[in-house]
Each structure stands twice: as structure tokens, then as C-alpha cells.
């Protein structure tokens, strides 16, 4: 059920929301997440995934998280197999259409080791939006009549007091921590994302705390030259971490496409060996490297270069 307005407001009111620098290390930023927290990740599917934040979160052995995301891809496998979460809220869960249904996800859900709470894409988006707007619910016209409805006790039906028609009410979703990756952010936390916005703005507005990883930290002066490009205001943000290539092997609009070769490698391992394959992957790529840069060193420079060239090409036209 949605948290009480009083409680939600108190959290926000007690934050230091003054204009102050929030640049810190990835390790420090992820310390803001507590075991048991509801963590929402920005981006969608294999785009603008806050992969570095998830990688660090797994390394810090966070437990019992509720994990929500508009669509979950390979990062969801990692979180399940690392046992960081046993409760995923999303609308679609697998690496990607061309790679088939995740064997890791299937194992954890079918064996009842974890819960996959399925909402439609839009109703999940509306839940974050209601959370960001400070209201307990938003009415909508989806989910009605489906078998998803009875599985979601928080989803309600109402008769519209204006039109008499049937509406579905989706409750606000207010995560404890949002982890979002962006292209550009200033030291105070003013985010200026490029390309597809996904659900990031609403997630930031809905969450108690917001951690931003960013390809580049830009100056506040630059932000103030185009304030109409700012997508998240500084006072919603608690941590700013500069992590170039912070989505790899996923993509970041205008900066790099996915490292498809590494994605293929991961999926082959995961589909071939199931959770055991993911464990191997975690050992090799998450736990072993000493830093995110060390992890990037393990990828092939040629693959990153191709991903970068293709990613930047959206600005070539």
C-alpha cells in the first residue's frame, strides 16, 4: 500500500535541499542504500541502465531489496543471482527479444526463490508519477479485465464520480532510493539527460533519495545557460558520481550503443548454464575487478570503440 503522506513528506522535509556539492565516489554513493530498501533503477531495458551502481550494490552485498524498473534486462539476472533482491517489480523481464527468455529469471521465479510482481508498462509509469506528484493514486484505463489485476492487491477498481465509468486506480510507488544514469549532471545534482527520457524524471520525484551516475560532470554555469534542458532538479539528488561508460554493456544514448559482443557472451553463459552461469559471470566481472575502470579493462577496446562510434552517430546527421 502507498506510504502515508505524512511519512513521505517528512523524509523530503528532513533532507538538506540546499545548493551544495554532492560529488562522491561510487562506493560512498551506494552506501546510501540500506538493506531492505526499495531501489528503483532508471533507464529501460538495456538503455541508460545504472549498471555501475548495480555492480557496486552487488559488491557491497546489499540484501532484501525490492527492485523496480520499467523493463528489466540482464541487470535483473545479476541482482537475483547475487541475492540482492527477492522481489522485482517490472513489466517485462529478460535480456532482450532476440536473446530469448532469461533462464536465470525463470529459475528464480518458477522455483519461488523470488517474486516477479508484474504491472503493465504504463501502470508502473503512472505509479512512479503519482509518487512524484505527491498523490496516493492516479486513475487509468488499463489492466482492467486482465488476469494481472487479481494478482495485484494494490490495484483497485472504482466507479468514476464524474462519468460513472469503471476505472483502475494505480497506487503511488515511492522507492527509497533511485539509481539513475545520465549523460550530464552538475556537482549539485542538476541532471540534463539527452535522448529518450524513459521514466527517470518521475522516479527521481517519487524517491526518498536519488543517486546519479553520470558520463560527465558539467559546470553549474553550463546548466544555467540552458535551464530548459534540466530534467531533474538538484534538490532531489543526494549523490553525484562521475562514471564514464557507466551503463556498459548496456547503452547510453548519444554516447555508446550496447557492447553487443559482451551481451552475447553473457547471454550465452546465462542461457547455457542458468544461474550457475550468472554466478561465474558475477565472480569474474563483478566481484573480481578492483574498480569499475578495472571492469571496463576486461571488455574489448575494439567493442567499446564500435559501440561508441555507433552511439555518437545519432549526432552525425
Amino acid at each position, binding site marked *: 500500500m502507498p506510504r502515508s503522506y505524512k511519512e513521505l513528506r517528512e523524509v523530503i522535509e528532513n533532507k538538506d535541499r540546499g545548493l551544495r556539492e554532492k560529488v562522491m565516489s561510487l562506493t560512498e554513493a551506494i552506501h546510501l542504500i540500506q538493506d531492505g530498501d526499495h531501489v528503483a533503477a532508471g533507464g529501460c531495458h538495456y538503455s541508460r541502465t545504472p549498471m555501475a551502481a548495480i555492480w557496486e550494490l552487488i559488491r557491497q552485498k546489499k540484501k532484501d531489496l525490492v527492485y523496480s524498473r520499467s523493463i528489466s534486462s540482464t541487470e535483473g539476472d545479476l541482482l537475483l543471482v547475487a541475492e540482492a533482491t527477492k522481489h522485482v517489480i517490472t513489466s517485462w523481464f529478460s535480456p532482450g527479444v532476440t536473446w530469448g527468455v532469461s533462464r536465470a529469471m525463470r529459475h528464480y521465479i518458477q522455483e519461488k526463490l523470488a517474486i516477479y510482481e508484474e504491472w503493465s508498462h*504504463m501502470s508502473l509509469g503512472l505509479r512512479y508519477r503519482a509518487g512524484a506528484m505527491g498523490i496516493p493514486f492516479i486513475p487509468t484505463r488499463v489492466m482492467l479485465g486482465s488476469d494481472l489485476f487479481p494478482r495485484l492487491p494494490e490495484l483497485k477498481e472504482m466507479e468514476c464520480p464524474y462519468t460513472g465509468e469503471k476505472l483502475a486506480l494505480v497506487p503511488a510507488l515511492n522507492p527509497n532510493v533511485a539509481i539513475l544514469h545520465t549523460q550530464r549532471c552538475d556537482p549539485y545534482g542538476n541532471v540534463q539527460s539527452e535522448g529518450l527520457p524513459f521514466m527517470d524524471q518521475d522516479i527521481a520525484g517519487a524517491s526518498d533519495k536519488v543517486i546519479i551516475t553520470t558520463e560527465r560532470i558539467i559546470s553549474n554555469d553550463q546548466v544555467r545557460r540552458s535551464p530548459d534542458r534540466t530534467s531533474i532538479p538538484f534538490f532531489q539528488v543526494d549523490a553525484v558520481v562521475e562514471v564514464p561508460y557507466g551503463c556498459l554493456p548496456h547503452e547510453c544514448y548519444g554516447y555508446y550503443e550496447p557492447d553487443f559482443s559482451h551481451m552475447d557472451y553473457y547471454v550465452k553463459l546465462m542461457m547455457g548454464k542458468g544461474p550457475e552461469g550468472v554466478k561465474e559471470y558475477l565472480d569474474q566481472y563483478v566481484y573480481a575487478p578492483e574498480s569499475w575502470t578495472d571492469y571496463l579493462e576486461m571488455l574489448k577496446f575494439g567493442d567499446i570503440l564500435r559501440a561508441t562510434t555507433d552511439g555518437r552517430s545519432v549526432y552525425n546527421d
Partner: protein
Amino acid sequence: MEEVFTMTKNSYNTAELVAIMSARLLEDGKIIFGGAGMPLISCVLAQKMHAPRLTILFEGGVIGPHIEPGKLPPSTNEQRAARRGNMHLSITDVLLLQQRGYVDYGFLGGAQIDQYGNLNSSFIGDADNPKVRLPGTGGANDIASLASKILVAMHHEKRRFVEKVDFITTPGYLQGGDSREKAGLTAGGIYRVITHLGLFDFHPTTRRMRLEALHPGAQVEEVQENTGFEMLIPDEIGHTDPPTEEELRILRELDPDQRYTRAKDE
């Protein structure tokens, strides 16, 4: 399956057939909300044939991208699918355009479909103890609840065309009759099912699936054999024209590696 196989061997495969037959249904000047793969290919084919002003929306948050032949995006939530669009907007907002009535066609697939056009992409078997946990609805439930007309493209198999889907992820006409409207889904509804055997619509009152037209070489018996429920067969059955050379040429330029138009039966 012999005949189909022979037919496709000669000039086109079943995936190509479905793509072309779908494209033909799309009118010019309309707005379509679709996924990657088959829907995308059908849209771009329609744009290059009879519907140059057809606009594609993706749930990743893009309106009217330019799709480059040979560079089809493998997902709708990524930058290849967003290239040279008219607008990028949030996922929630692009989906809300449908709720407002801006979207004419939704184009979907699914693991199972039933006689009332309901789709399942969540569970094979019992939802509480599933044999297979499928990836889930994504935007499919939203699209099928809100877009004015839903197209479904599927390979025609008995295990997919079932009497009752294991789980209604995505509403068609629910239990038939006016049950969809009674559930609160007052807009839209399923419009056509396109398979490699034919086109199917829904009876205007019972809302049961009905054969509308057979593709070249397909037979009524073949449809019945590959359907797990009683397909309505009207007295007058249409026959679609075979894919033209131009349609096939454009299609193959779009997807030269056949990533999305590989035959399902090959």
C-alpha cells in the same frame, strides 16, 4: 504443412508472408504503436508501399523515427529505434497518447491467443506454479486496452491458438460478447489476427475469432487443424493476393540478414 512449405520455398517464407499481409492492413496517415521485429518491418514496408504518412510510436518514447534499411533496432527502448524521430518523450507519456485516443493501431504478438483474441505473455501453465514464467506484458496490456484497433501477428499453431489462454496478460474480447466493455475497456478492441495461413477477424456480437481470408495456397482444413478452438468459418471466405515482387524486394532490403523475417517453419 507440406503445401505451405513448398509455397514458401518457392518465393517467400511464412514470416515474410505475415509481414506483407500485415503491412497491407495499415492505412496511410494513421498512427501505429508497435514493437520491434515484425510490427516494425510491416510498418516500414507499408510506408514504402501505400502509406508514406504512417507514423510509428515506440514505447521506449519516440514518435516517428526514421528506420534505416538493414539497421533494424532489436529493441524499442534504445537509440536505434529513436533515430531521427520527431519527438522523444517519457515512456509514460508516449503510452498516455494512446489513452487519449491518438493511436489507431497497436501491433502485438504473444505466446498464446484464444478464440476471443486474448493474449498471454506471462505464464505457460498455472500462474501460481508455472511451467514457464514468460517475460511479461511490457506495454502489451496498455496497447491492447487503449489503441483503437489491435493487430496480432502470430505463427498459426495449435499450441498457440488455444480455447482459453493460460493467463490473460493482454485483453482481447475477454469472455466474448460485451464482456470487454463491461470490464471498463470501452475503447478499442482486437481488429485482425494475421497468421501465415490467413486473416482473421471477430464476429461482431459473439466476438469469436473468424476466418476472413486465406492466404495463397492455404486451406480451410489447414486452419482448423492448426487451431485449438472452433474457428468460425463464414460462407464467403476471402483470398489474399500473393506477395508482389516489389513487396518482397523492399522487405528483403529492410531485413537483409532475415533477423526478423526468418521462416518460423524452416
